[in-house]
């Protein structure tokens, strides 16, 4: 008999707004860039993690959503064996373009390791792992759109086989100042059943 799992919490960030479990937690009223929005949000959720400022936009987005979710929990993430499975459409394209700019001209060739390391989408998983000391299962997937049918099966398999106790899943997409994060925690406790249909609804909220 399969154990039931739940979506214990979910966070969305898009259009200058962060919401937690369906309720708006933070909103920048006027139109603003991700740079300014992410700084305001960082302060609002009282993050206090100076490494944040060195990260690329995709990692910042993933970390802000994760921080808002974990702040709402009364556990220490380090002790919970929380696996990470994030996905998106554009991989690390935002940073890829920055690295490409630095090598486009042979006479003005200035590739930087601090940029290059972020030309992999899974670096955002590494950043989350470091921040919350998660020595846990992690995988980054790329698909044209959010694939809850696939991700729900993968997450439950990690739980069923004891490879993880909880799974932080979601979609983190950043290109050209457009951003969209939808991150949720799959756990043994909660009220929302962990089902693909539920996630499709929450994702569109």
């Amino acid at each position, binding site marked *: 008999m399969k154990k039931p799992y739940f979506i214990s919490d979910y966070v969305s960030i898009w259009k200058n707004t962060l919401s937690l479990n369906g309720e708006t937690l933070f909103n920048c009223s006027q139109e603003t860039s991700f740079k300014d929005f992410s700084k305001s949000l960082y302060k609002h959720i009282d993050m206090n993690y100076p490494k944040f400022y060195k990260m690329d936009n995709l990692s910042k987005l993933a970390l802000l959503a994760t921080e808002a979710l974990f702040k709402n929990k009364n556990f220490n993430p380090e002790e919970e064996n929380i696996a990470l499975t994030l996905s998106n459409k554009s991989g690390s394209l935002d940073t890829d373009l920055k690295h490409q700019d630095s090598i486009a001209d042979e006479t003005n060739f200035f590739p930087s390791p601090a940029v290059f390391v972020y030309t992999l989408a899974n670096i955002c998983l590494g950043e989350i792992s470091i921040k919350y000391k998660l020595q846990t299962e992690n995988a980054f997937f790329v698909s044209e759109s959010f694939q809850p049918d696939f991700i729900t099966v993968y997450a439950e398999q990690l739980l069923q086989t004891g*490879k993880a106790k909880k799974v932080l899943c979601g979609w983190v997409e950043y290109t050209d100042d457009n951003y969209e994060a939808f991150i949720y925690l799959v756990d043994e406790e909660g009220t929302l059943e962990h089902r693909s249909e539920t996630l499709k609804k929450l994702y569109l909220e």
Partner: protein
Amino acid sequence: MREVYINDSNCITPLGFDVQANFDALLEGKSGIVKSTDFHKAVYVSKIDEQLLNKSFAEIGDPSAYTKLEKMLILTLKPLVSEYSISKDTPLIVSTTKGNIDELHHTNPRRILLHEVAQAVTDFFGLTQQAIVISNACVSGLLSVAVAKRMIQAGVYEGALVVAGDIISEFVLSGFHSFQAISDTPCRPYDESRKGITLGEAAAAVYISTVKSKNPTQAVKISGDGAINDANHISGPSRTGEGLYKSILAALEEAAVDVTAVDFISAHGTATHYNDEMEAIAFNRASLEHVPLNSLKGYYGHTLGASGLLETIISIESAFRNVLIPSVGYETSGISQPLNIIKNNQQKDIKYFLKTASGFGGCNTAVLFEKIA
């Protein structure tokens, strides 16, 4: 739990366009690494000849309609799709770190996004399911084996095609150069004179399913896996080999196999100072220091998202021929802890072997395989 097998495999590398040709070249000690002037700086690489690739591809499709990487992926998968008369709803998992990244400098780049590469492959074979791309740095190829196995065990798939590939680009070369991680000689994993990586390109494919191959000399069981993050640094491995050590333990625990049963290790061995040292620490912590081990990077270079799958396929061949391939480029130990690095072709009965990989972002993967006699 359902048992899951790798039934068949294929690969395309500078050493040959199928597994037999590759393994025969390895037995003769051939390496694909040569000096190239195709990039910003002269550099050693293991690069696939595009004319040869186009000639082979022309037998199945129009070479001008696809990028180099797409041709490699399609050509690698083709015999597996034909052999198993794959039904059109078979899932496809594609492993790549950078996809068609060399297209980025073109005015009209083709299929820059990774899912677009996967779609080109999906469409070529007329598959109906949306492919899933795994892009998890240098563990992608090996992680894709673990992911396919997990999805099959969950009961949603009966079988899956897995294909992995990456190409050499100015984009990636310049990035590793900026880290001062590119060797100015062919790479020498674990050796005291090692100076960093050599890049390579390759594609590799496997068919994974719950059914054992009809040919009993081909199937290996995927017995256990782990893919655990170091949670330490995004561009440097853990000093204690934490994530790799835990990944190995997870693989052995799931397989319920004692560490003393491991007959052979196909390690990552990139020939950077930090990677090789980290592996030596992790393998010693796991009490695997006496187990014969190689890195195939001295033959193929670092083929990024292809490496984990390519090296798995070569190791399967090693297991069935009971022959261990030497870790080319290794002469004198340049790591602080002992490892049993293979120096010459050796006969050994192999039942269990371990494949590992590690990469940027602190990721690691270990998979234990069992040869089915």
